[in-house]
């Protein structure tokens, strides 16, 4: 059984001729195999990544050349406005760009794609604890895709209350463009993403706690799995709050409850009947989820980067336990820092001081992680392959994003830079230059395990180089804009005399953004070309230690063709005990009898 499914998976890209349609649907569409589900998540989210990137180009177009005709597609999209972006369309652009990137790309690509694919393989299990629930967690993304897709096509074309959906703008029908049915569809869509994530989290927690291979103690888990494990805990505890808040906003909109609406609102010259609520309540509930979500969006990336750096430095990770403790520390503190999004919101300023102190302290575990990555590279033998380049750039860029966070954690400084491009710079450095780069690295790294073939290395390096240059050209100048006070979310900032001189810099950034999106064409071609033409590889092309590399590439249903037994931690590179510079977790110590070294 094992061997036959292995060859089936290798032919995954071509339609299996023998099995018929029902076989195909059962195996590749409604699959319960964690690897297929992971790959489904991967390609769905990469497609949304493209959509989110194109939305960002719309934003960049307007900021560089406001109210000018968009070439080629302008007349198709906005013929009524003579090919220009309208202010309504602009609010939709940044709302949907953030929504797509956060809820449909980063969260599902980390937990959904890599969590699914890697967790059973890296802990030595044959599948997830609840395969059917796992399948459901993917298929609950589809209502979300459809609802958000409908939101785009519901006049006036997409939700426009920001991805934070602050009431009253979001809760009062007609307060913002798109705040009629488009906003309702948005709320339902995000709720479906939440259901999917919750199903995933329950599954990951159970699988990691219950299904580890013999000998795989918690402190022998690869850091990727630690990242996924802590993330699943964060999801499980924080998500219910967002779901509840989302339903409260829905009832405010549909049933007139007024949880978030105060007395005496007058919107569009008509008085609102509902009242008795507090707009700040939404912000507290929203950020109680969405701040931990920031760590949901980076902890798995940190774990994957740790594995890639150790592998290509050929050296044990520096400070394994401090790394685990700092992941846990970030997660724990992550629950008590949400108020730093609200320093100037009207929240009690005394609370601001508490949140400032907690937020400052969360920089500590992040700093410890950076020092440990540097310590891992120190004294190693660094191999500059594509996954390693992306992983190093994660460290380099995370230093920028981490340090810029200190500015906004400080309450008085935040008074000035809050809601400016300094904030935009910060989270793009963490989420794009950090997480997205880690994801690229992870795709290049685990691609051979997913498809049995290597991605093209030259194209990979070119993709890395162009992305790295254009990304910094796009995001780094945002810091300078922020120092001037340049606000977010303005369709035309240049009519303020304070910001008029910033247009040339914005044009430079937009040109870089176009270059950055264009560079991804190389990646897209590479990922499909290599599926058919990439060089075939054996089980362990990178000479890595962790369990997934002892399984066939790609692994068949049930993953392992032997029972993995774990003898040591995942980072024993360069160990004097053996002649090779790596020492797989399953390889018995030299004293013991040799029984299959897991290599093909």
């Amino acid at each position, binding site marked *: 059984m094992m061997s036959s499914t292995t060859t089936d998976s290798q032919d995954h890209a071509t339609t299996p001729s023998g099995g018929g349609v029902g076989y195909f649907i059962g195996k590749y569409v409604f699959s319960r195999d964690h690897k297929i589900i992971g790959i489904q998540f991967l390609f769905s989210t990469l497609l949304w990544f493209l959509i989110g990137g194109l939305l960002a180009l719309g934003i960049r177009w307007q900021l560089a050349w406001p109210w000018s005709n968009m070439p080629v597609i302008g007349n198709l999209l906005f013929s009524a406005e003579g090919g220009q972006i309208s202010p309504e369309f602009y609010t939709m652009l940044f709302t949907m760009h953030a929504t797509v990137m956060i809820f449909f790309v980063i969260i599902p690509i980390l937990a959904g794609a890599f969590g699914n694919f890697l967790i059973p393989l890296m802990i030595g299990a044959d599948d997830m604890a609840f395969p059917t629930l796992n399948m459901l967690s993917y298929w609950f993304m589809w209502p979300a895709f459809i609802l958000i897709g409908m939101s785009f096509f519901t006049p006036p074309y997409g939700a426009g209350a920001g991805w934070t959906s602050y009431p009253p703008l979001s809760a009062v029908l007609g307060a913002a463009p798109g705040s009629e049915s488009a906003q309702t569809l948005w709320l339902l869509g995000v709720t479906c993403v939440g259901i999917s994530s919750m199903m995933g989290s329950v599954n990951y927690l159970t699988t990691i706690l219950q299904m580890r291979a013999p000998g795989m103690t918690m402190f022998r888990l690869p850091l990727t799995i630690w990242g996924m494990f802590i993330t699943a805990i964060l999801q499980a505890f924080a998500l219910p709050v967002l779901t509840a808040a989302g339903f409260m906003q829905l009832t405010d909109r549909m049933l007139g409850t007024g949880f978030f609406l105060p007395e005496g609102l007058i919107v569009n010259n008509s008085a609102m009947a509902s009242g008795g609520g507090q707009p700040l309540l939404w912000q507290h509930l929203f950020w109680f989820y969405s701040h931990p979500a920031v760590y949901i969006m980076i902890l798995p990336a940190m774990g994957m980067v740790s594995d890639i750096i150790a592998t290509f430095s050929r050296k044990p990770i520096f400070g394994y336990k401090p790394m685990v403790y700092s992941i846990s520390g970030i997660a724990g503190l992550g629950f008590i820092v949400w108020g730093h999004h609200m320093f100037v919101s009207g929240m009690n300023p005394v609370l601001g001081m508490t949140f400032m102190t907690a937020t400052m302290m969360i920089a500590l575990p992040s700093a410890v992680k950076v020092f440990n990555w540097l310590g891992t590279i120190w004294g190693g033998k660094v191999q500059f392959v594509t996954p390693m380049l992306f992983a190093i750039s994660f460290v380099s860029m995370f230093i920028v994003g981490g340090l810029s966070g200190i500015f906004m954690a400080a309450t*008085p400084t935040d008074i000035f830079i809050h809601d400016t491009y300094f904030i935009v710079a910060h989270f793009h450095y963490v989420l794009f230059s950090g997480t997205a780069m880690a994801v690229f690295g992870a795709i290049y790294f685990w691609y051979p395990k997913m498809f049995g073939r290597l991605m093209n290395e030259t194209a990979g390096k070119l993709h890395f180089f162009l992305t790295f240059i254009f990304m910094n050209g796009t995001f780094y100048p945002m810091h300078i804009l922020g120092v001037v006070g340049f606000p977010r979310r303005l369709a035309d900032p240049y009519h303020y005399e304070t910001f008029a001189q910033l247009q040339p810099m914005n044009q430079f950034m937009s040109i870089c953004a176009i270059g950055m999106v264009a560079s991804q064409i190389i990646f897209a071609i590479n990922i499909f070309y290599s599926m058919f033409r990439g060089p075939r590889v054996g089980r362990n092309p990178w000479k890595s230690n962790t369990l997934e590399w002892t399984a066939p590439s790609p692994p068949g249903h049930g993953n392992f063709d032997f029972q993995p037994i774990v003898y040591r931690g995942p980072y024993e590179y360069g160990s004097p005990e053996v002649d090779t510079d790596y020492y797989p977790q399953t390889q018995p110590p030299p004293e013991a009898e040799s029984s299959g070294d897991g290599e093909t």
Partner: protein
Amino acid sequence: MGRFWSLLFLLVPILGAGLFVVAALPNSAPLYDHWFPEDVSRDGFIIDNLFNFILYLTGVIFIATGFLLFWFLWKYDAAKNTEPVKFIHGSHTLEIIWSILPAVTLLFIAIYQMDAWAAAKMRRPVISAGADGVEGTSDDQLKPPLVEITGRQFEWRLRYAGADQKIGTPDDVHGVNELHIPVDEDIVVTLKGEDVLHSFFLPNLRLKQDIVPGMKQFIWFRATRTGAYDIVCAELCGWGHYKMRGRLVIESREDFDRWLQAERDEQNRVQYSPSETDE
């Protein structure tokens, strides 16, 4: 290629720090006016200084870690490094050092910021310290607001006190988008909202406060230079958010009084008000 990639990562601290230096230099040709906007307030320099303090501190760490990363990549490039890999799993001493040092620094930054935060958000100017003679106690006589600002889609509505010196009475002077204030005086402003969230942002006074409908908030500041400056809405408030622009006019006390009197006269001349008699 290891040399090439190491140098690429060395560019991050060099160009990153370089851009900040060029932007911060006054009158640097390509990036003219790409730093803090002109500060026309008494207290704005505190925020600028705190920002610069964090900038210097993080700048040193940014350059140091960036350079270390470059150096390790350069030195330990597998193509050049012939020494065996250091088989080390970590260092307890190092972990302690690089936990405690940042912890102390971060805690220091937090505590160092608190006084400025309290002054900006908790110590409203007082006229007199009250019976006990101590400022900051509950019997202080707080300075009354000069003007009440109401944010609404997409304008700033202003109300100054009329002849009775009280805001909220029928003789209030109404205005829109053009906020006049006297220079060199403590100004207290009431912020209110009518429809959705807005944020009252004065870049030149380093002041920002969200407006929340249903909440009445006070802000205070003191301008030190006359002139006209931008009022920016900094919280998304709908499709017209970008054009919710006001002007702050800072003028001498005499000019301000003259302007307010002229506004009162103008309003009384044109206002139809059945409960009041025309002068």
